C-alpha cells in the first residue's frame, strides 16, 4: 500500500516491525517498529515512557517524509 500511495506522489512512511517484509514488498520509506502486536507501544513500559517511545517512532516517520531518497531506505 505504501508504494501505491507513493506512486500517486504522496510520500509515505511505513512503520512496521518486520522490516524485511516491507523491503521485499517494496515500500520506499521504512521505519522500524517495536513488535507485531504493539508496533508503536510497549506494554512493559509505564504509560508516560510508552508515549515517549511512540512519539519517537512517529518523529522518525516524519523525518522520512521530509527526506528525499533515491531508493528504499530504512530510517533507524
Amino acid at each position, binding site marked *: 500500500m505504501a*508504494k*501505491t500511495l*507513493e506512486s*500517486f506522489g504522496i510520500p509515505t512512511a511505513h512503520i512496521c516491525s518486520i522490516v524485511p517484509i*516491507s523491503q521485499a514488498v517494496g515500500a520506499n520509506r521504512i521505519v522500524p517498529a517495536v513488535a507485531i502486536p504493539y508496533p508503536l507501544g510497549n506494554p512493559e513500559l509505564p504509560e508516560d515512557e510508552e508515549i515517549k517511545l511512540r512519539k519517537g517512532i*512517529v518523529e522518525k516517520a*516524519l523525518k522520512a517524509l521530509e527526506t528525499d531518497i533515491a531508493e528504499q531506505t530504512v530510517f533507524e
Partner: protein
Amino acid sequence: MKKIVHYLNQFYGQIGGEEFAGQTPILKEGPIGPGAAIQGLLGEEAEITATIICGDNYFADNQKEAMAVIMKMVEEQAPDMVIAGPGFNAGRYGLACGTVCDAVKKQFGIPVLTALYPENPGAEMFQHDIYIIETPINAAGMRKVLPVMTKFIGRLLNGEEIGFPEEEGYLPQGIRVNVHTVENGAERGVNMLMKKMKGEPYTTELPMPVFDRVPPAPAVKDLKNATIALVTSGGIVPKGNPDHIESANASKFGIYEITGIDNLTGDLFMTVHGGYDPVYATEDPDRVLPLDALRQLEREGAIGKLYNKYYATVGNTTAVKNAKKYAEAIAQDMLQHGVQAAILTSN
C-alpha cells in the same frame, strides 16, 4: 462445422517479405500458409473459412485503424474461433497476434489462440489474458508447434476443460490453483530434498514471487504546514466494526472520523485484524494507530495538521492486488482533501 478465422502477417500470408510489411489488412478465403497445414490436421473437425493478412509495420504504426478494419472483418465472418500465427519470436508480429486475439476474445467472447516464443513481447503482454501455445524461437519449430496448436484448437472449440501448461503446451497465465496430490506435502518435501542433495533435477512448487518497485515520491517540502494522514493495515476500527471489515483477506477499507479525538481508547475503537494478539491493541489502540503522538506533534507545530479522518483495513493474508486497489482509492481521497503525506502503520 465450426468456423475459424486465421490472422497472419504479410510473410506467412504469402504476400511477400519485409518490403510488404506495410500491407493494409485484407481478407482471403480459406486457409493460407501455416493455416493450410493446420486445416490438414483439423480434417473435418473445423474449417478455416477465411484468413486475415496484415503487414507487421502497418499494424504497428496504425494499430487503431488496423484493428477497426480487422474487427469488422471478424464480425462479418462470424467465426466460432479466431487463431493467429504462430509468431515465434517476431516482436511486431507477436504483438499483433496478441492484440487481435485479446480484442476478439473481449468483444465477441469466442475462444482465441495464438502461438509465440515465451520472450516475444506479445507473449509477455498477453499471456495472462489469452491462451498462447509455447513455440521454439523460430520457424524451424513450425512442424513441432502445429500439431500442439491444432489439438488445443479442438479442445477450445469443444469447450473441454483445459489442463496445466506442462500438459497442454501453453504459456502459464499466472493463476495458481489448488490440486489434490497422491503424496502428502511432507513426502514431497523429503523427496525434493533427496534430489537436491544428490544434485538431481527437481522442480520447486512455489517459485519466489516478484514484487514491483516504485520510484520514491518527492519529500514533503514544508512539513510544518503540511497536512498528514494516518493509514493502518492493523485493523483499528470504531467499536462494533460498522463496515464489517474482515479479520483476514479484507475486501474493503474504511474511512473514519477523528475530529476532536486526541487519543484512541478501547471503549470507542477496536482491532479486527485476526493475525496478531489483539490484547495490547484493545487496551490502547494508539499502539497500532498512533493518534495521540500525532496530536501532540500537531500541537507542537511539527506538522501543519493531521487530516481529520484516517483510513483502515486489515493486512492479514490480504491479497497484494486488493491492497493495491484500496491504496489507489485512498490516494485519490487523500489528493481530493489536500493530504500531502501519509504514515502507514502495519503489524
